[in-house]
């Protein structure tokens, strides 16, 4: 059956997939997708803790709400940055964005 270590292990695999995306992808939007997966893994951790370790604590749900907020913020600010960079450099490829100025 399902237990807390099982949920945490599944979340660890999801976090690893997201980390691979963040480290390996060349496009800014794909890197943001990796970050989304890593945040999704952290939410799965929190729900697992809430279900199997502290079922009576409602504060766990609050933390999940905060992480969901963080995902929305990351997307909003990330898209703003991508639009800004694309206007200036005509690309969203990370390999071409190696200088802050110029």
């Amino acid at each position, binding site marked *: 059956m399902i237990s807390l270590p099982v949920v945490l292990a599944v979340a660890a695999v999801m976090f690893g997939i997201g980390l691979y995306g963040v480290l390996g992808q060349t496009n800014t939007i794909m890197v943001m997708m990796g970050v989304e997966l890593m945040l999704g893994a952290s939410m799965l951790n929190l729900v697992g803790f809430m279900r199997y370790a502290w079922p009576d604590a409602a504060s766990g749900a609050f933390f999940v709400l905060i992480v*969901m907020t963080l995902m929305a913020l990351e*997307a909003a600010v990330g898209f703003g940055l991508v639009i800004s960079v694309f206007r200036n450099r005509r690309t969203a490829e990370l390999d071409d964005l190696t200088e802050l100025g110029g």
Partner: protein
Amino acid sequence: MSGLGTALVFWPGAVIMLATAVYVFRTSSMARAGLLLLASLGVEGLLFLALASEFLGVLQLLMMSGEMVVMTFFMVMFMPDPGGLMGMDMIHDKRRSASLAVAVTVALAVFAVLTDWPAETLNGEAPDVRQIGFEVMGRSMFSFLFAGITILFAMVGGTMLAKHGGRFAVEAEGDAR
């Protein structure tokens, strides 16, 4: 949901969630990658439902369906090869990033399995949604208000960054850009 019911939803859901997450970075079509991420995070919402978090599960489905559709639009706009027809390789440092990701995954999974976590069984019903409401409107209200203000700042900041010419742009009178 009983233990068997949870397992029947959790295992297939976990396999689909992880498989779609892997294919996000394997497909060469950007529209497909966005929809696969939507599938992955949507199935995660089903896992939340299976783990007796109905409110968070439904919220996850709603949030991710909106966010990922927006992300798919952005991917199609900004990728050099959105349809994946040119067979571009969009991965750099493949071996090092893969080995680091595998190492982190194994370390986290071993830590998760070997740690002696506190265990408490759920007493019958799932936690009452009202409890979350009392938590948000009571003890955690200040943090929740802070999150709301942060969202507002992010919206303003994102719009300013996306504005033509960036945040330092001085628009001429009557400039409609």
